[in-house]
């Protein structure tokens, strides 16, 4: 489902492959970035990181607790 107009409070990543998570205002718990592809995860981290560092809101599509799509608004 789409969850709209959320600030990104934290973005987490590690040196493990496709390992990235985000915490959104108004949503409970960390959401994992879906591990579909290396570059897809990297793109998602780029988008969420830009939103976080510039106080922009995002619309995210959640598949359970995983983020599969996002719009930087």
């Amino acid at each position, binding site marked *: 489902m789409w969850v709209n107009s959320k600030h990104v409070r934290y973005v987490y990543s590690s040196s493990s492959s496709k390992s990235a998570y985000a915490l959104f205002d108004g949503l409970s718990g960390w959401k994992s*970035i*879906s*591990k*579909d*592809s*290396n*570059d*897809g*995860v*990297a*793109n*998602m981290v*780029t*988008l969420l*990181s*830009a*939103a976080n*560092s*510039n106080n*922009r809101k995002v619309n995210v599509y959640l598949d359970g607790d995983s*983020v*599969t*799509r*996002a*719009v*930087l*608004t």
Partner: protein
Amino acid sequence: MSVRLNDGSQPEVAGQPELVVVAAAGEAASLTSAPGAAGGEANDVASILREASATIAPLFDGPPVDAASGPPSTSTNGDAPDDLQRYFVVDVDPGRMEELARRLNESPAVEGAYVKPPAEPATVLDTRPTDQSASTTANFRSRQHYLDAAPVGIDADYAWSLPGGRGAGVKVIDCEWGWNSTHEDLKANNIGLVGGSSSANDHHGTAVWGEIGGDDNGIGIKGISPDSALGASSFVGQSTAGAIKKAADSLTAGDIILLEIHRRGPNGGGGGQQGYIAIEWWPDDFTAITYAVAKGIIVVEAAGNGWENLDAAVYNTPGSGFPTGWKNPFRLANPSSGAVVVGAGDPPSGTHDRTISPWNQPYVDRARCGFSNWGERVDAQGWGWEVTTTGYGDLQNGAHDQLYTDTFSGTSSASPIVTGALAVTQGVLKAKGMPLMTSPRARTLLRQTGSPQQSATGRPSSQRIGNRPSLKQLIPAALKQWVWGRTLSYCYCLTTSQGAWAFVKDIGWRRLHSGTADGISNMFTVCCNQQSTAGQVNVLMDDRYIYAIMQA
């Protein structure tokens, strides 16, 4: 049908000679002041004019061009327009023009004074009506092979299949002498005259209008760009340069002006149209064209039917009385008007069951028509023979509003084909929210795309008239362009590989073009950085993809 070559002795319509004066720097105001008003000898121009019973007036009407109200003093579209206020036209008996020009050139207030020979439409055949008339017009689309798929035609069907590909929202103004605005096939999008008056002999302009924008109504012919608005600026009652400026003042960026005219050049005078050349060679016409181009208007100009090599050295020599600083505009190394110059090429052999042109030359598809001027300045070609369109009456005779021709010719018939191709391309760009072509960009794209010129005996392809447009090539090439100084409204990505998009403000969503995964990630990094900081980007994009992005 009766067809004969136009030998030039009786042009179907013709202009008048014009005496043009270019004021020396700072002297424009003194040229129109009364004798003595500017003080003593400084106003000798007024005395010269009075003695000749002549009057002088600004060549370009309208408010003075300045930084606040006029076109930009420099332009990315072409070369800087000259100062329009320095140009004047003298009203005097044509028989006294040369002598008066000589005297005016002796004045320190005058930088140049020159006489322009009468101009004519750039058609070759003088057609005569057929005996065949009809109460109800048939559909002549099957005779318009210039619309067919490339290389025979320009791929009009392809353009018509695209949103905007019928030229909606684009205005085209034809500059020449006469038009039939009540023709049955020219009613849908006719905006009429914007300046001057229409000649009673209106066949030529009617034929031009039909090629570009004939109505899509199931009868007669169909124009290349049937949804474009068709207008006219006449050389009847206006100088040629004045008519061009009037047209430009009636249009906005992205619209099109067509110059259906040629004039006797320095190699002319040998009879007929031999030596007739494109009008940008004359300084005032050149200035009027650069004015239009600087406004973002595409100007299409007939190369002329003078069977001349425009690269010849004779064109480097300024005409008598030309202002200092004039340079041959037919050389690519010199300042350019920015206009698209169009030559005439043969249709395929067998068109309308004919294999030989009225010049007794075998038709060789896309070879230079024997009469067409050529040279490095010529950008593209259209059909120079066998063009089926409105007017004349050699295909269908009868009421004036129901006349059709099968034999429109010359760089006159060639130029509307290129004009129509550009109009539908602008329509597609407009429909997709993409920036419209400027005249110089149109020139570049026409040179980079299209069906190549071919050689015929005595007419080698080295005598350049350029390619015949192919809309299947031209439209995609026009769509792919750098768009400068934009912001991104949104960025969007998937977690699957190479799934990333950006929304370019005022244009729309574009996918980052698939290539390498890391390349897309790099572009997406720039997109996200710039979107989140409201920074500007320059984007290489078309109607579907972003191919490259530059953080501005």
